[in-house]
C-alpha cells in the first residue's frame, strides 16, 4: 500500500484587508498538488517561503481541511478517518516552539506519550530509547527552557517518534540550527530511513535534500513544478553552466536586464551581507561573461566564476523561471 497519496489537493484562505472598509480576498496557497510516497521512502518537498509546503503537510496530518482534492495516509482518508491517521503519523516542525518550557524534557515526553496512547508498560523503555537516539540521555531531567535550539529540535524529533509512527512528517526540522547540530539531525533523519520509516521532509537546504531524500518534489506558488530523484532534477540543468558574479549594490533593473540575454535561462540574486552574488543559469556552450559585465557598467564587481550546476541551481531555476 502506498504510504502517502495526495490527489489534486487545493487549499485557499480568506483574508481581509482594510480597517474601516474591509474587503475579503481569497488566497490560493495550494493549487492542485499530487504526489505519492512509497513505504520506507524519504520524500522531499522543496520550495521557497510561501510556496505551500507547510499547508500541504498540514492537510496531510489532518490539521487543515483541503478546499478540494483528497489525500490518504496508509490508506486512511485525512478528512474522514482523522483518528486513525493521527495514530499512525508523527509530526515535527522546526523552530523552538512546540514544547512546554517549564517542564523537563522527560516530562514533555511523558505528557505526549499519554496523549499519543503509548502503552504505559513500554513508555519508560521507549522514552529511554528515543533519548538515546537523539543523543539526549543524561539531559532529560533539565527544564526545556534551558535547552539550546538544537536540543529542543532533537527533543521534538523524539516527541514525534514516541508512538512509533509509520509515517513521519518533518517540516523544516533543521531551521535555525548550527552546522554541527544540523549534521547530527541529518544523521537522526537518516537513521529513520534505516528503520524503514516513511518520511516527508520539507527543507530549504538543498544539500540536506540531496543527502537524505530518495525523491524530491519542487513546489512553487502552490503547484508542483518538478518531481524526481535528486540526480534527475540535477540532470535537468546539467546541460547548462552557471555563472556567478559578486557585485556590490547592483540595481534591480540591471538584474532584470540580464534575463534578456538569450543564453541566460534564469537569474537569481543571493544576498551575502553587503555583497550580492548574481547566479545566472546559462546554456551549455554559451559565453555571456563579457555581456554580463558590460551590462553591470559602473557597478563594483568582485569574483567572477563559471561552474557546473548543483541541485541548488536546479531548484533556483525551477522556482524562479
Amino acid at each position, binding site marked *: 500500500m502506498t504510504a502517502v497519496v495526495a490527489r489534486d489537493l487545493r487549499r485557499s*484562505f*480568506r483574508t481581509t484587508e482594510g480597517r474601516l472598509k474591509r474587503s475579503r480576498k481569497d488566497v490560493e496557497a495550494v493549487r492542485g498538488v499530487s504526489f505519492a510516497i512509497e513505504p520506507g521512502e524519504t520524500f522531499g518537498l522543496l520550495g521557497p517561503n510561501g510556496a505551500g509546503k507547510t499547508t500541504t503537510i*498540514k492537510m496531510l*496530518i*489532518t*490539521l*487543515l*481541511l483541503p478546499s478540494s482534492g483528497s489525500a490518504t495516509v496508509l490508506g486512511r482518508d485525512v478528512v474522514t478517518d482523522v*483518528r486513525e491517521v*493521527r*495514530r499512525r503519523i508523527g*509530526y515535527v*516542525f522546526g*523552530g523552538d*516552539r*512546540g*514544547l*512546554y*518550557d*517549564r*517542564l523537563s524534557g522527560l*516530562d514533555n515526553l*511523558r*505528557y*505526549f506519550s*499519554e*496523549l*499519543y*496512547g503509548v502503552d*504505559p508498560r513500554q513508555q519508560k523503555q521507549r522514552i529511554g530509547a528515543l533519548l538515546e537516539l537523539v543523543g539526549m540521555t543524561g539531559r532529560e531531567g533539565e527544564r526545556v527552557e534551558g535547552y539550546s535550539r538544537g536540543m529542543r529540535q532533537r527533543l521534538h524529533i523524539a*516527541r514525534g517518534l514516541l508512538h512509533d509512527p509509520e509515517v513521519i512528517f518533518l517540516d523544516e526540522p533543521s531551521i535555525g540550527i548550527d552546522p554541527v547540530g544540523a549534521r547530527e539531525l541529518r544523521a537522526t533523519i537518516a537513521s529513520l530511513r534505516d528503520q524503514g520509516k516513511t518520511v516527508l521532509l520539507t527543507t530549504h537546504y538543498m544539500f540536506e535534500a540531496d543527502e537524505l531524500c530518495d525523491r524530491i518534489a519542487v513546489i512553487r506558488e502552490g503547484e508542483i513544478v518538478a518531481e524526481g530523484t535528486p540526480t534527475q532534477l540535477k540532470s535537468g540543468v546539467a546541460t547548462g553552466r552557471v555563472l556567478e558574479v559578486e557585485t556590490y549594490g547592483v540595481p534591480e533593473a540591471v538584474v532584470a536586464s540580464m534575463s534578456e540575454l538569450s543564453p541566460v535561462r534564469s537569474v537569481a540574486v543571493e544576498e551575502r551581507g553587503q555583497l550580492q552574488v548574481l547566479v545566472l543559469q546559462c546554456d551549455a556552450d554559451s559565453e555571456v561573461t563579457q555581456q554580463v559585465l558590460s551590462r553591470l557598467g559602473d557597478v563594483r564587481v568582485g569574483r567572477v566564476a563559471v561552474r557546473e550546476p548543483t541541485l541548488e541551481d536546479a531548484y533556483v531555476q525551477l522556482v524562479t523561471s
Partner: protein
Amino acid sequence: MNHRVRARVRQLWLCYRLQLKILLISPFEGFLGILFPLMFATATLLVYRVAGDPDAMAYAGLGAAVMGVWTSVTVSASTLLNRERWAGTLELLVAAPTPFAMVLIPITTAMATVGLVSVVLTLVWNRVVFDVHLAVESWPLFGLGVLAATVTIAMFGFLLSVVAVRYRTAWALGASLEYPGWLLCGFVVPIALLPVVLRPVSYALAPTWAVEAMRSAAAGDSPWAELGICLALGLGYAAVAAYLGVRLVESARRNATLALT
C-alpha cells in the same frame, strides 16, 4: 476495570499532574494566584465591616473565598488556548489521537486546584485578619460543597477554553466574566437583591448552587438538593463543551485558526 478506561484514567491523571507542575513551577505566579484572592476578600470584608454585623461578615467571608477560584479559572481558562497557541503546542494537542476534551479537562482541573488552595488560604486570612469565625455544622458536607464549586468552575472553564479554539479573541469573554460572576453567583451579595431579570442567569451558573450548598452545610441544613443541581449543571457544561470541542476543532481546521497567533 477495562483496559481502555484504565488508560483514560491514567492519561487524565498524568496530564493533570504535569499541568499542575507547570502552574506551580513559578513561585511568583503562585504568589500572585494567592495574593489576588486575598486582596479581593480584603476589599469585600472592609466594605462589610462598616455595618458591624458578624453574620453578614461570615456570609461575605465565605463567598469571598470562592471568588478566588472563579477568578483564577475563568480568566486563565479563557486565555489557556491562546497560551498554547503562542507556545506552538496547540496544533500538537489537536493533532494527538486523544479527544480534545480529554486534553483540556486535566488543564482546567489543574487551574481549579490552584483556586482551591486560595479558598483555604482566604478562609484562614478572613479568620486571622478580620476575625471572621466560620461556624460549620457539617465539615464533610461543607468540604463537599467546596469540591463541587471547584469541579464545576473547572467545567465552566473547560467550556470557556473550548470556544477559544476557534475564536482567538474569546479570552476577552473570560476576562469580562470575572467581576459580573462575583455578583451573579451570589458570592458577596445575595441573589435576591439582584434584578429579577438576572436571576435565571444566576441559577444557570453552577457556582451559585455550590456556594448555597456550602452555606447550607455550614448552617446545619441539608445541602444535597443544591449539590445535585450544581453537579448536574457541571455535567451539562462538560457535555456542551465536549460537543462544541468537536465542532469548533472542525471549524478551526476549516478556517485555519489553530496556528494563528
